[in-house]
Every structure is written in C-alpha cells, then in structure tokens.
C-alpha cells in the first residue's frame, strides 16, 4: 500500500544560509565562511542540517495538506549539503512514501532527501494528521 508522494525540489543558495543563520540563531561559521569550513576538513560551506530538515518538513506539510499537521518528525544527517558561492547554489530534492496509517488515524511518511544524487538524510520519518 506504499503510496509515492510528489517529489519537491528546493534551491539552496548562500543567501538562504545567511538568512537561516539569523532566523535560527545558529551562527556556526561552517555555514557561511569558506575559510573556516575548509579549515575543519569540509569541502566548503555547507547548509545547516536543520535547514535541510526544515525544507523536508515543508514537503511534509504540502503532502499533509496543512502546515500544522506534523505530530512527529525525525531525521539522521548522513552527508553534508555543500552550497557553492554561485547564483544557482545547489538543490535538495525531497520525495516521500506513505508507509501506513496508525491505529489512531495518523499517516506515517518515509522521506528521502538527496543533493547531487546522494542521500543527505536517513531514517527520515514523519507522522502527520491529515486534514
């Protein structure tokens, strides 16, 4: 009964990371300073894991048909999302599959998020109350 949900694509630029840093209060320089990011062994500036999680959360809200539908939401961050200093930045692609319905009528969704074809989240699951 696995039902495939429509794939959603999100563009991510450096400007998005700066805006997210301010809104979330996470000013870790790996998310805005190339010099710092490479000095700690990263390929360059990477997106906040929580920003990627927020984008996948937007996809879940669209699938559920309501922005306040999420009852439970968890992910594992498996791979960084490098964001080049270009106008295009990069893309995060989010797809989902309905895994079933709980006894109390909640819908369980398994989420896949990729960047450049590589999975950036694992064990990404949401439980939603469909409106």
């Amino acid at each position: 009964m696995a039902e495939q949900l429509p794939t959603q694509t999100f563009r991510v630029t450096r400007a998005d990371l700066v805006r997210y840093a301010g809104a979330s209060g996470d000013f870790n320089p790996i998310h805005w300073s190339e010099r710092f990011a490479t000095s700690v062994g990263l390929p360059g500036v990477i997106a906040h894991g929580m920003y990627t999680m927020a984008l996948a959360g937007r996809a879940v809200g669209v699938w559920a048909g309501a922005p306040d539908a999420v009852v439970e939401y968890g992910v594992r961050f498996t791979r960084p999302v490098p964001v080049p200093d270009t106008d295009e930045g990069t893309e995060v692609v989010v797809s989902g599959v309905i895994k079933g319905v709980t006894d109390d009528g909640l819908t369980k969704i398994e989420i896949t998020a990729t960047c450049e074809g590589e999975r950036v989240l694992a064990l990404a699951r949401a439980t939603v109350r469909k409106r």
Partner: protein
Amino acid sequence: MPLDPSFVGRSWPPTEPYLVGREKIREFATAIGATDAEYHDPAAARAAGYADVVAPPTFPVAITMSASRQIIDDPALGLDYSRVVHGDQRFAYVRPVVAGDALVCVNSVDEITTRGGHDFITTRTEVTTDAGEPVVTVWSKLVQRGEEDHG
C-alpha cells in the same frame, strides 16, 4: 577524550521562559521559504483554531539549541564543540508552537556512547509553557568526531 558518562540521566533546572514572538515565527518561516498563511497571518491561524500565528515544525530548535548550552558548555562534559556535527534530530509534538507562548525547557541527557573513535551524546528537551502545559519534546544527537578525523 571521551565524554563524561555520569551526565547520562541527569536533568538541569528549567530555563527562563522564552516568549515566542509573531515576528520571530514569520522571520523563521520566511528563512525556510514557507509561505503558508498560518505561519504569517494571524487571521488565517485563528481560522485554523490557534490564538496567533503557528510555527513551522522545526522552529523549536531556535529555542532548544541555546537552551541545551546548559549541558554542552559544561567543561565537565568534555565536549570539544569545534569537532561536533549534528547526528540526529527528532521532534514529538503535543501541539504546534504558537506566537505568544512562553516556553520553558527542561534538558536532560538520554545517552552517551562511543563508537569507531567518535563520541555521541543524545540530549532531550521537554518544552512546556510556563504554566506547565506540554508542547513538544526535542531530541538532538551530537557527534564529536575523533581527533584523528579532524582536518
């Protein structure tokens, strides 16, 4: 240096209430590109049954991340934040966060483990209103990468 295992099972005193502002929710929703009316428009949120605008699902981390510094900044834990990456994140909601909420965080440590030269710590934050109404439980697993892994 491994993390101090005696932190497991410990809880910390409640944080000072964080007053959730309407503009902060709008700013956060805008930052993640979420245009849903319930995040921005109080009238739309009221129509959905809330007192004011509703926060997106991952918004609580804006509160819990600084609240959990109670734990991770304690030198006795032995965490080197320059080697830390985010491992897992989970939220379990009783209800969404709404503008006007005064939220209190109670932090505890669920688990500390070591595997493959890396150290893992899972913190749990119970977020309630200042009147004690439960809102959301937030788990974060942080990974302290092994020293030889660095750079």
